């Protein structure tokens, strides 16, 4: 079972985390094919992927950049980097 070496709470087993998937940004005002591709397609090729992970015991969110070929976490992403504005 994988262990994440969290910068805040130290090494924790993956069973404490929920995997939410790739970090994505909805394409606002997209045409139909673009929107459909966003909703239904996921980046599946092995390589670097930014992923949402939720640590249930603490309710804390992490974005990790993971090499999905080697299953290695390359770095933890500053959450500021994944922010986007929604139309209000």
């Amino acid at each position, binding site marked *: *079972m*994988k*262990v994440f070496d969290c910068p805040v709470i130290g090494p924790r*087993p*993956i069973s404490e985390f*929920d995997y*939410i998937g790739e970090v994505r940004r*909805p394409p*606002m005002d*997209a045409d*139909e094919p673009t*929107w*459909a591709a*966003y*909703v*239904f397609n996921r980046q599946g090729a092995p390589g670097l992927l930014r992923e*949402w992970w*939720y640590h249930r015991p603490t*309710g804390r*969110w992490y974005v990790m950049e993971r090499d999905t070929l080697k*299953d290695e976490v390359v770095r933890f992403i500053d*959450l*500021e980097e*994944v*922010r*986007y*504005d*929604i*139309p*209000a």
Partner: protein
Amino acid sequence: MTSRLDPQPLEWLDRSETLSFEFEGLAFTGFAGDSISSALLASNQTLLGRSFKYHRPRGAVTLANHDVNALFQSSEEPNIRGDVTPLAAGMSLTACNVNGSLEKDKDQIIGKLSRFLPVGFYYKSFHKPKKLFPMWERVIREKAGLGTIDTRWDARRKAKTYGFCDLLVVGAGASGMQAALTAAEQGLDVVLADENPHIGGSLDYQLANDDSAAPIRTALKQKVQSHANIRVLPGHLACGWYTDHYVPLLGPEGIVKMRARAVISATGVMEQPAVFRNNDLPGVMMASGAQRLVARYAVKPGQRAVVLTANSEGYRAALDMLAAGVEVAAVVDMGKADSRGRWADELKSKNVSVLEGHAVYEAKGKDKLKQVVVAPFDGSACNLKLAREIDADLLLMSVGWAPAAQLLYQAGSRLAYDSTLEQILPQELPSGIFACGRLNGAFTLDQRLADGERAGTEAAAFLKDQPLPAEQTDCRDTEAHSHPWPIVDHPKGKNFVDYDEDLQLKDLVNAAKEGFDNIELMKRFSTVGMGPSQGKHANMNGIRVLAAVTGRTIDQTGSTTARPMFHPVPVQALAGRRFRAERLTAMHQWHLDNGAQMMEAGAWLRPEFYGRQEERAQAILREVQAVRTGLGLIDVSTLGKIEVMGPDAGKLLDGAYTMRMSNIKQDMTRYALMVDESGVIVDDGIAARVAEDRFYVSATTSHADATFRTLSRHIVEWGLDVRLVNRTGTLAAMNLAGPHARKLLAPLTDIDLSEENFPYLGFKEGNLCGVPVRLIRVGFVGELGYEIHLPIESAQLVWNTLMNKGAEYGIRPFGVEAQRVLRLEKGHIIVGQDTDGLTNPFEANMPWAVPLKSKPWFTGKPSLALLKERCQRTLRGFMLPKGYSGELPKECHLLIDSGDIAGRITSIAYSPSLGRYIGLAMVDQPLAGSDRMYQVRVDSGALVPLEPCAIPFYDAEGERQTIDLTEVA
């Protein structure tokens, strides 16, 4: 007569304790410390089992947990591995795979028919004619599989424990002990695990009589057992390697989930059989198997032995047999004896005949070895002109080794064939994985100790993040210990490559010729390596055969995947203790005391209804009527309850829910519908405005955690100033519903309940029965109703007060079933029951909850904008015809239109208010848009008509929800 030897120096036996047991109805005895097989062999019971397919006689081969033809059956347990399972007093055992008795197995006839059962015959034979297949299936199921399970088993559970260490060393032989010591000396916290009940590994059986090994063995064992940094775990099987060095160790008390920072595999090698005719007769054994039998169990394996060898170990085994009083008729060396070292010299000095350049062509005997046919061997075939027979009841095979590299493979190591050693060896090991010992090609004791030290040093440097020593010692041997082709063909076959599945040499050759010439294909077609031992003594020869047939190298041929577990692990150990958390509401005990039948709802237990199981229907009916005409009280504590606070609280909810939440007026609530990005409904609840910067949101029982999670992620990704508190567990909730609700509550609360001050969908904070509460005017069940949210500490007090004071209005507690009927009469959906993983709000009849024009954005909005005009189905109401008395449709029964599926029933119940069966169905277009009758196919296959009708079924104008109590008083 017994084959038990005088006490051996390292034997595992406790001769002070004699154990009696039964096998095949006969009485036997053994000693404490015996395995089942060793006790039987000590009593000269050499026939231990029957083979899987041909029911051939089989005996002991390895004594190392690979003897899968010596499986035993007790009344409680099937497939007991006799070679490693400790003997226990009073055991009553039979052989596993026999038709009749072990001695007179009626299925031996199958062996005679073997030429009509070629490789792959299962796939070729039984599928036609098709109508005969059920008959064949019964026959195959009867013949296939081993052992009998007692389905009235008692659950025996073993708790799992968690272990942690710096370094896990698997295998406590010479190199493993040395590696553990070296690392422990560097200050590391080391666990040394071995599947055997005693440490020592091959030092204790292969080198048991080697004088030079004795002081090393004593010193190593003493040092590892007394070292403060080493925890020695004998009797612990490393089941498999999992990510980040997580290795479950199966021990006598259950599984220890060991988390290490690095792993050394010192798991050694597994001896491989030679392939010749009748190489499966009882009396034909691995040399190491015979050595185990002597050293561990003090059992003399036979009277007169032939030793077939291709390495120095065979000579060591011959010496050990002599020491055990076995006459050694001949050593048959497939190569030259002069390269076999000091053991060969020692043997020759004892005047044992050595036949160089010879192989065993055939073993003879009926149920037991009688003669061995040997002949000159040129590396690929025997010269039969010079063949001769030697009388023997024991034939030892010492022709090669395969690495026990399963853990290395699982960790992602690369291994490659080494043509010097004629063995597969580790080439590249992943980070934190190390290998040493015979697994790594170190064969002499000196090499093994040096290799253990090297691995321990490297592991310590890795764990301390220090550079590796510049000088890399190569501890690998330069002599081959395996024969590249220990295989002899025979026109009459029965030369087995795989004992588990009775696969002969020709079966693999034929599989390759039929085109299954990829190792993974060959495995699946021929089933080589798929039996209980998982190819531990079949895969290496299988690969050699396939490489030869296809003209490829061993590396080009490849190897099959080595999946966990290494040995079978009992399900009771994997299951551990049952751990399934059940969440109980504050009123749980009251529900039980008042006759509630509880049901699971997500992780929660909720009252289904109150009353006896036999009176289920009447009980639900009474509860429904109480709500409609008097008062009902339901525990809804299981709802998700989330506090949303902060300046951006409204913005968060606007983005996360379909409808606008930021403009809810103070002290009002709004239906909260959540969809995902594809527009599918995932949750619903209500959102209440508590203050300008504060909302209180409810969620469905089973989706509460996910909703909390989604909201918390949106805070992060939208950069909002919001705090969330999940109050699901700390707040209780109950719904007081019925026309008398206001009348009951008014004298108990300081909140003004008047319609003007507290209208439908209103929200108020105040006191009830003297404790702080939140009240919400809700309408889920379709009557005047107040949802009361309050801290769990005061919930029972309020519940009791309402039940007591409500008695005059005929108050009843009601459960989930009554609530389902009540809401169905109102046409309210339950997310997950009336919707599925594809249902959008338009299909669920809720276009009013999707403000496409007035809201610029919410999760799923672009999808819903596209879906609005493209709905392929719609949720519709229906009733069964008046007076219908036939078979009742059920939820999930299919609607049929012109012979095609046209939808399904999502909810159906008897409505006491209407006196008819009503329901909801997800109906495909165009049927949904028509006013035709629906037809539903019930269990019997009959079609039952349904009358489409408008929703809600009851009180369409919603007058009941604002009912003035004076009117009903």
